[in-house]
C-alpha cells in the first residue's frame, strides 16, 4: 500500500467508526474521484434466504465514497455535510461477493458539491446501484445544524 493509500485508509475508514465497522477499504482517492471496497459480510445480509447484502450497507458505501470524492475535488480541507442522496437499486448484489463503489464529484460551487456514484461487483456497466448526491461545503462543526460527512 502506498503512503497516500495508507493515509486515505486512515482518514476515510479507520478513523470513521461506521466505515471501520463495515471494514471498508479505501482503494483510490484523487482528482474528484474515490473508489472504495465493501467486503462481503454475513452480518450485512438483508435477506438470509438469499444471502444478499441489505440496501442499507450499499447506502453507507455510496455515501462514504461520494463524500471522499468531494474531499478529493476540494482545494483545501473543508467540513462537508450530505444534503441529499438518491439511490437507485438496479439489481441485487450477488451473495458472497465484495461490492465496489466509484464516486465522482462532477461539480463544485461555492456552497454545494454534486456527486454521482455507482456500486458494482466487477463491471460498472452491470451496476448494483447508482446514486446522485449533493453536499454542503464549509459546514461549521455542529454550528450549521447539519450532519458532517466524512472527516
Amino acid at each position, binding site marked *: 500500500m502506498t503512503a497516500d493509500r495508507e493515509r486515505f485508509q486512515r482518514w476515510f475508514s479507520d*478513523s*470513521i*467508526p*461506521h*466505515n*471501520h*465497522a463495515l471494514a471498508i477499504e479505501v482503494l483510490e482517492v484523487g482528482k474528484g474521484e474515490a473508489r472504495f471496497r465493501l467486503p462481503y459480510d*454475513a*452480518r*450485512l*445480509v*438483508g*435477506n*438470509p*434466504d*438469499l444471502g444478499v*447484502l*441489505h*440496501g*442499507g*450497507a450499499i*447506502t*453507507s*458505501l*455510496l*455515501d*462514504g465514497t461520494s*463524500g471522499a470524492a468531494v474531499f478529493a475535488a476540494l482545494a483545501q480541507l473543508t467540513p462537508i*455535510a*450530505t*444534503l*441529499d*442522496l*438518491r*439511490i*437507485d*437499486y438496479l439489481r441485487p448484489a450477488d451473495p458472497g461477493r465484495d461490492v465496489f463503489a466509484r464516486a465522482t464529484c462532477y461539480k463544485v460551487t461555492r456552497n454545494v458539491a454534486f456527486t454521482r456514484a455507482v456500486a458494482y461487483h466487477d463491471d460498472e456497466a452491470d451496476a448494483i446501484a447508482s446514486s446522485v448526491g449533493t453536499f454542503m461545503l464549509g459546514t461549521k*462543526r*455542529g454550528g450549521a*445544524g*447539519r*450532519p*458532517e*460527512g*466524512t*472527516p
Partner: protein
Amino acid sequence: MSQGLVDVFAEAKRAGDPQRLLDAVPYSKFLGLHAELQGDELITTMRYASHLIGNPALPALHGGTLGALLESAAIFELLWRAETVVLPKTITLTVDYLRSGGPVDTHARGVVTRHGRRVANVRVEAWQADRAAPVATAHAICLVMRD
C-alpha cells in the same frame, strides 16, 4: 424469494410482534434496530452504538446508517400493513439530511402514500429527542409484487 423469510414475517404478523420481522434480518441486528407498536404506529428505533458514528469529532451518526434506518422503516411498514406477505424490493430511495444525528437513539416511522398493484410509495421520517425536528426524511419507492 424462498419460503423461509416469508414464513417468519407471516408468523410475526399473526403474533402481533413486529420485532420478529427484524430478528430475521441480520443487517437489522448489525444496526441495532428494534420495532414497537405505539398505538397504531409502527416505530423502528436504531439504538445508539459507537459503531454507527460517521463523524467522531461532532460526534454524529454516519449518513448511511440514517439512510438504512429510513429504508428499513419503509419496508417494515409495508410488510406490517400488507395483507399478503411479499418482500418489498426498494427501487429508489431519496434521503434528505436535515440535522446532525447525535449519539442517541433514533426513531423512524413510514407512511404509505400510495399502494398500487406493483409499486408502493412510502414517506419516512427519522427523529431523535424531538419528533417535530426530524434529523432526516426519505421517500422510498418499492416493488411489491412477486417476480
